[in-house]
């Protein structure tokens, strides 16, 4: 949640200019420029705070920030860059007029992605488009790239779509019930990766949880919150709080969503009617892996002889500090080998809607990440965020690499149900 104007000088002053953030910043890694590093961006924020207007070049450097928060992890001085950049993004949205074309693209993105129903309406045509192999034609001709690189990025990123069965409102625990948990189904996760949600519900049930999936839930507001659209984010937050007030724990399987729900407390701190409810909800929010490790394993793990590379989603590792839990869950599966990816702290370029707004930088980061994933020699990439999964899968496809991509929940589901490696990987005949 963004900083207030009174806090700003202190938050900016926390930076001692040591530079420890530089090597973990994706744009610094790409371009090696001070202005595109956290230290440089804080310097720009300072200039703005001292009265320099938000120039075109300043906004360009703020827009280029992925908001991955790797710098927050790296900073020894405890600079709250997350709050600084959210504050800055909100300022940019209110003070800086964007060109019409860019404005239209942003409006379109925020009118589509936070609304599962609108996404669903898109599914039909998109499936037809994919089945008619129009995608191949479009990519070959480069038609869309010429019209809009952002649209082309959107088209490339869409995963192959299958059927999307709707989850029931309640999934009963198997064996003795150990807990009752709420489950966030998300927007992109729900419409583009329905299999992940189904797997999440099954794993939770098999581990002894009654899973409550409220129909009233909508978007958690993550995309808006992380793009400076604060009012919109607050509205989404209030609706999400209402939907989940009845459950003790809310389990989230998308890193970006989990991190934004943990930020509700700060987001609504200034709203007396909602502050306490927001704080309570943030305190009850858990990432799936985080929760499963807290709960402790009970269901039998069946062997899954697969070599996996585990990808740290930024909003899981940096924003929520969840690193060891997914690895522990994966390592707990007999026969499964976990490999580490080089430069795990550097973002894959997905970063919410970054890959739609800054397709070029995102593409380069995706290629770097895909290269490191291939370097592990793993057969399966495990990522706990739909954005990362789409981004890295697209980059792997571009490099012609045959590495399957799955969510931690799907791997656990395959093990708990004894489906074998065939459920995750298509072996060559």
């Amino acid at each position, binding site marked *: 949640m963004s900083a207030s104007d009174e806090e700003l000088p202190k938050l900016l*002053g*926390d*930076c*001692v*200019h*040591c*530079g*420890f953030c*530089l*090597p973990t910043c994706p744009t*610094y890694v790409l*371009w*090696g*420029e*001070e*202005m595109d590093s956290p*230290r*440089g961006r804080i*310097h*720009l924020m300072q*200039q703005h705070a001292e009265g*320099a207007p938000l*120039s075109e*070049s*300043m906004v360009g*450097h703020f827009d280029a920030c992925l908001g991955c928060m790797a710098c927050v992890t790296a*900073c*020894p*001085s*405890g600079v709250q860059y997350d709050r600084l950049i959210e504050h800055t993004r909100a300022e940019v949205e209110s003070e800086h007029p964007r060109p019409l074309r860019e404005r239209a693209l942003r409006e379109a993105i925020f009118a589509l992605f936070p609304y599962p129903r609108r996404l669903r309406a898109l599914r039909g045509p998109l499936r037809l488009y994919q089945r008619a192999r129009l995608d191949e034609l479009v990519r070959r001709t480069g038609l869309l790239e010429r019209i809009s690189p952002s649209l082309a990025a959107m088209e490339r990123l869409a995963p192959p779509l299958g059927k999307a069965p709707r989850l029931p409102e309640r999934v009963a625990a198997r064996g003795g019930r150990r807990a009752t948990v709420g489950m966030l189904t998300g927007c992109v996760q729900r419409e583009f990766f329905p299999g992940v949600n189904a797997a999440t519900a099954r794993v939770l049930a098999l581990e002894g949880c009654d899973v409550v999936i409220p129909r009233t839930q909508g978007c958690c507001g993550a995309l808006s919150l992380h793009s400076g659209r604060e009012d919109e984010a607050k509205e989404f937050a209030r609706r999400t709080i209402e939907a989940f007030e009845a459950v003790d724990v809310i389990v989230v399987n998308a890193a970006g969503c989990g991190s934004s729900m943990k930020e509700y407390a700060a987001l609504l701190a200034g709203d007396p009617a909602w502050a306490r409810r927001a704080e309570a909800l943030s305190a009850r929010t858990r990432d799936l892996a985080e929760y499963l490790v807290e709960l402790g394993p009970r269901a039998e793990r069946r062997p899954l002889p697969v070599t996996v590379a585990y990808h740290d989603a930024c909003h899981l590792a940096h924003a929520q500090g969840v690193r060891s839990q997914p690895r522990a869950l994966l390592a707990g599966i007999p026969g499964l080998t976990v490999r580490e990816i080089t430069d795990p702290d550097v973002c894959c370029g997905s970063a919410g809607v970054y890959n739609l707004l800054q397709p070029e930088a995102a593409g380069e980061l995706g290629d770097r990440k895909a290269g490191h994933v291939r370097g592990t020699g793993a057969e399966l990439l495990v990522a706990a965020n739909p954005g990362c999964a789409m981004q890295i899968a697209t980059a792997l496809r571009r490099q012609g690499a045959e590495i399957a991509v799955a969510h931690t929940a799907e791997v656990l589901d395959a093990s708990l149900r004894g489906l074998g490696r065939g459920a995750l990987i298509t072996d060559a005949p």
Partner: protein
Amino acid sequence: MTEKVTRLAERLAVLLGPDAVITDPVRLRTYECDGLTNHRARPALVVLPDDGAQIAQIVRACVAAGVPYVARGSGTGLSGGALPRTDGVLIVTSRLRRILEIDIANQRAVVEPGVINLDVTRAVRPHGYYFAPDPSSQQICSVGGNVAENSGGAHCLKYGFTAHHVLSCEVVTPDGEVVELSADGPGYDLLGVFVGAEGTLGIATKVTVRLTRVPQTVQTLLAAFGSIEGGGTAVSAIIAAGVVPAAIEMMDALSIEAAEASVACGYPPGAGAVLIVELDGPQAEVEHQFAQVKALCEEAGAFEIRVAADDAARALIWKGRKSAFAAVGRISPAYLVQDGVIPRTSLPRVLARIDELSAESGVRVANVFHAGDGNLHPLVLFDDAEPGAAERAEGVSGAILDLCIEHGGSITGEHGVGVDKARYMPRMFTAADLDTMQMVRCGFDPAGLCNPGKIFPTPRLCGEVPGVRKGVHPLVEQGKADLF
């Protein structure tokens, strides 16, 4: 921007491409300081070359235009060595980050100057080697910067400074010539002159570094003492026993507090000082000496000794130490990092005097130091929002340097003189000493365009006034130097 600089910017944009030349004032200001923020100067131009050949082109263009230039790596220096000139060009090497060659058989690697120190180790670690210089900023500082500053690090007690790990450098001289300086071969050791010259004698464009074999075993312990004196006694006892640890580091209570706030390193509570001792080498030797070190720490009054059981535990012990500088940001709005050297035996007396200075002035001082070689890093804390606080801190900081000189030490151990300590040089050297150093500088840079204004206190003789000099060189005129 002066007309001279405008024309130079146009010329450089043609040579390097427009993306590599920064002229926007807002962007330029992000380069106004390095890791030392109390000196700031917005460069007239920033250029981001891609390779060494471009650096040579830039230098030649600057020389032709009579514009001063400064090289900068990652911008983590602590003496303002890469402080830009408002009338000059800042040449940033952050895009020269290729590791060009790894030659394990000959224990060497060739890297570009912008390569990050730790990345050299990462690249050769699978072969069982590493790059020994390990400044606390090793995760981001550049090898080029290490060469310029002759950087040390916690392990230089046993392994030496950057100078001991650089075999040769390809250098663009201040007049734009590309030369190879090597430690091998007869003749003057020009490489020895170049390393540590703080970027005043040219810009390294390729560095051949020595790779060191990863030791067979490493043992690390953390000993907690009630007071600094106990720690100091232990250090002297360890060295007197003939043990050469890879590192001996000490932190006092205030710096422990900062590190705890920052990285939760979990040092023993209530410690007035902690000592980190690391031994490495052949198993049998390390085991024997480690027992000795433990006993000596106990004798000196350590109330708790922790031995790192594995790499993770070792990393945690080091994390507190390595993040200490920046971590002080958690307990103080602003601070000065001082860097001075004293004979190891003077440690207790000097520390007691620093305590007095702190009490007299009301300025808090946190102490972090490479105890093994007497390299102190007092961190002088102040609130930059409070009027006069910075000046008081500056006063204490300077008094600490005087203290170092008084005890036969030095005004810098590893951070360099840069712009920050130039004014202390006359306290340590006579005018004749400084003239001799200037002669060396003028031998390389008669026009005085290469990182001018650093190291030396006043613009004396040649060198400090940028611009193409006409007529006879002052040193030659005075009969102090000959031109060959």
